[in-house]
């Protein structure tokens, strides 16, 4: 007799556990407000990207087209993937000294792993990570970016 | 067993091995031909009971190889680093420990393909991670592959 009760109590317990599981999914079916997914391109206006989000390396420029990069290549050395290449130029200062200045800060977004080491390594805070994450292009060449704008100059007083 | 006691006991049991110490571990260095005996004693001796092998590392020191075994006793709680030195770089060979520690089986296969060290009496010594047709032993310090290694700077 014991086995028979066990048989039926097994069935009962099993069915109850199943019904409990169904109550969870049933709850979500009846509460569409719980839906958490969003429609991505449509929600661009309300999309909040955290301030610290590392999407892309940029070099901020002032209004009169000046940046803070001295071309010291600390970021190039810090980069684990070789995604930064500093092309520098030699000029002669008014005092007659030879001096290295930055020509191009080449940044290869395709190779970047967004580890933030370059930003930490920069002694003059010339480069920062921006929030922009929409990098898709049809041409891989577009991902190689020159961060200093054409004609831009180093901000006065940074070099010291 | 505390560190001093373990060290004394070790020197008693393996008088001809060389010892060194760092902050964490006692390091016992032996030669490749004695490794099975040493490991068997370490595992089965009731004073040691090193039953848990948690890390196996191959190291290339240019003219010799070292296999490093990190051992722990789950009963007694002490730890030991066992090193086996393989002098012969041309034909590096060492006895397998996979019969004592099954976890060594896959690890030894990895060291075999990365360093070219042959583990004698290993049940199934084949390449593990690399493609079957791979040539050379990539983790050796003198490995050179212009196609796959891009030097920075």
């Amino acid at each position: 007799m014991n086995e028979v009760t066990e048989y039926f109590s097994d069935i009962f317990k099993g069915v109850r556990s199943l019904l409990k599981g169904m109550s969870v999914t049933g709850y979500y079916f009846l509460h569409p407000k719980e839906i958490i997914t969003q429609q991505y391109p449509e929600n661009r206006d309300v999309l909040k990207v955290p301030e610290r989000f590392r999407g892309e390396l940029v070099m901020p420029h002032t209004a009169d087209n000046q940046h803070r990069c001295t071309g010291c290549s600390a970021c190039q050395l810090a980069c684990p993937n070789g995604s930064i290449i500093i092309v520098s130029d030699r000029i002669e200062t008014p005092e007659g000294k030879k001096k290295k200045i930055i020509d191009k800060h080449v940044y290869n977004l395709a190779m970047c792993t967004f580890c933030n080491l370059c930003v930490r390594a920069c002694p003059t805070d010339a480069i920062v990570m921006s929030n922009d994450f929409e990098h898709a292009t049809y041409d891989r060449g577009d991902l190689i970016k020159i961060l200093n704008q054409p004609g831009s100059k180093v901000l006065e007083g940074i070099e010291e | 067993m505390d560190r001093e006691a373990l060290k004394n006991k070790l020197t008693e049991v393996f008088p001809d091995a060389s010892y060194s110490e760092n902050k964490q571990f006692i390091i016992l260095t032996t030669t490749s031909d004695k490794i099975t005996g040493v490991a068997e004693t370490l595992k089965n001796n009731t004073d040691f009971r090193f039953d848990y092998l948690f890390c196996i590392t191959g190291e290339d020191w240019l003219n010799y190889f070292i296999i490093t075994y990190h051992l722990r006793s789950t009963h007694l709680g002490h730890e030991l680093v066992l090193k086996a030195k393989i002098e012969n770089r041309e034909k590096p060979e060492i006895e397998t420990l996979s019969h004592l520690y099954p976890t060594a089986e896959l690890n030894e296969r990895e060291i075999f393909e990365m360093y070219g060290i042959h583990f004698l009496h290993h049940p199934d010594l084949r390449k593990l991670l690399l493609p079957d047709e791979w040539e050379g032993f990539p983790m050796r310090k003198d490995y050179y592959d212009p196609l796959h290694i891009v030097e920075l700077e």
Partner: protein
Amino acid sequence: MKILSIYDFSNLTQAIHTWLSGKMSVVSTQVVEMILVGTVFLLFFAVLGLVLVYAERKVCAIIQVRLGPMRVGKWGTAQTLADFIKLVFKEPLITRDADKFLFNLAPFIIIIASFMAVAVMPFAKGLQAMDFDIGLFYISAVSSIGVTSILIAGWASNSKYSLIGAIRSGAQILSYELSAGLSLLTIVILTGSLQLSEIVESQADGWWIWKGHVSSIIAFVIFIIAGTAETNRGPFDMAEAESELTAGFHTEYSGIKFAFFFLAEYVNMFIIAAIGATVFFGGWMPLHVGNFEAFNNIMDYIPSVVWFFMKVSAIIFLMMWFRWTFPRLRIDQLLTLEWKYLLPLSLMNILLMAFLSLMGWHF
């Protein structure tokens, strides 16, 4: 019987029949009617597939706190149509060592099997293509032809995953056919007839699920479990078992042939739900509660077709709910469930029902 005459389709079908007979000979009338019914069912199939796939996606999405398809059409309503078009244009691949004839045949068998089953379905009074006097027997016979298709598909694919899926499916459907049939027989004891129209008529004063007490509720539970198993749906999707067998018997199918299997799954689900609705929930019979005349009259104004589809969709929703809640059983547990639990229970239940019926304790 107070079915409003406007909802009685027999007048309409009769009128068409008389009109056609007046125009042509008996044989050609028959042929024309067959073609007519066939076309209607074909269209019905297409719509059914689209609607059910969309419904499943939305139900599953809401349960899974997602939105589901939202892009194609308003609320993604045209998504399944778009998917269907994609499947039609996909390349039908055949594995190299496959048995090409059987490989191509299998999807047609499964679709024909489910096609045949719809023939006896009483959608409303008079809206029934065939009214066999062994309708219930016919339907359970025909609906199990589908498994041969799965076996053929698995075998002909010449893939081990497909074969395992097919063999699992064979074992599964053979066993679950028993309890599905027995649970239906439980109601047949009460109706005394296998004719579907008669089963529906017998529920004019109340559905069997109420009239047959505990016994018919147990029968319904067993039927819905066995039915879910017969349609190869989760938690009994052993034949597919995507996390074990990649896609089971239809691993090697692509394009339109895959679409056939996909469609057949949904049509089968509809058939099981329709049988359940017909046998246990009075088919197209409106809901009548005892002597509440006013209430009953209001209910009568809802068209019988609507009643039928409401009941069917309720059962289909139940099956979807199962699928998106439960983990999959293992094959041996599946068979244990059938042979150790469902079959003894339905045998006991059939005895109980016979006893109830003998004592006249049902309503």
